[in-house]
């Protein structure tokens, strides 16, 4: 079982290492992630929101839906933990394992 897991890990790792050959070089200003959408944010975020920190501007304004459902996700996680774990004070003894 462990050998099988190691084999799967090695195969997946070698495929991923082969895939990194097509990645853009580290720190390349022309890599695809840096030329499509982010120039608009860098050029216009300060003018449109008057917030010098671009990360905060994008987080709070341009991607407001993302952040809102993020808050909902963490809120749900808190409620799930409470509802899964909480025992009431007068828990009946026959329920205890």
């Amino acid at each position, binding site marked *: 079982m462990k050998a099988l897991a190691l084999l799967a890990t090695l195969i997946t790792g070698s495929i991923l290492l082969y895939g990194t050959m097509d990645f853009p070089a580290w720190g390349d200003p022309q890599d695809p992630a840096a030329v499509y959408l982010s120039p608009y944010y860098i050029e216009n975020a300060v*003018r*449109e*929101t*008057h*917030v*010098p*920190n671009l*990360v*905060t*501007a994008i*987080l*709070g*304004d341009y991607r*407001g*839906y993302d*952040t*809102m459902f*993020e*808050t*909902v996700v*963490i*809120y749900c*996680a*808190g409620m799930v*933990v*409470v509802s*899964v*774990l*909480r*025992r009431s004070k007068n828990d009946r003894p026959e329920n205890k394992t």
Partner: protein
Amino acid sequence: MKLLRERTEKQRLGESLIIQTSVRLMVPFVQLFGLYVIVHGHYSPGGGFQGGVILGSSFVMLALAFDQKSSLRLMSERANAILGNTGAIIFVGVGALCAICGGLFLDYSALDVLIPLGPVEWRSFGIFLVEVGVGLAVMSIMVSLFWDLGSAGKMDEGL
């Protein structure tokens, strides 16, 4: 000093006097720093998520150095739940208020009809309101996660 030691011995908390005293001194400053990180997110690295985690960590620190009961005395579970719900409602409420004022959902410039600051300034201020909401929600959930996981749901002395 003698009084403090007697009190800790009476409560049977007594792990280490140095840790307890330094935590007691540090907690207000940690909370102040957390508030600073939240409200200064426009101008420096920071924001609601980071500041909320710092605020929550102050209560986690109290629960670790003393016990969970003493952190529950300073921040009751009801107050924690109210703060967390308030944070989530601030976020969704600001978004809904934008829609009510005639803009799109979460388009803060629509709030200009309430207080005429200018649409761009309202976008900046709307981000601030949202960050405060996120900070409150994250702080409450972090503390709640630690309380429940640390005591396995029994809410007793804990770790």
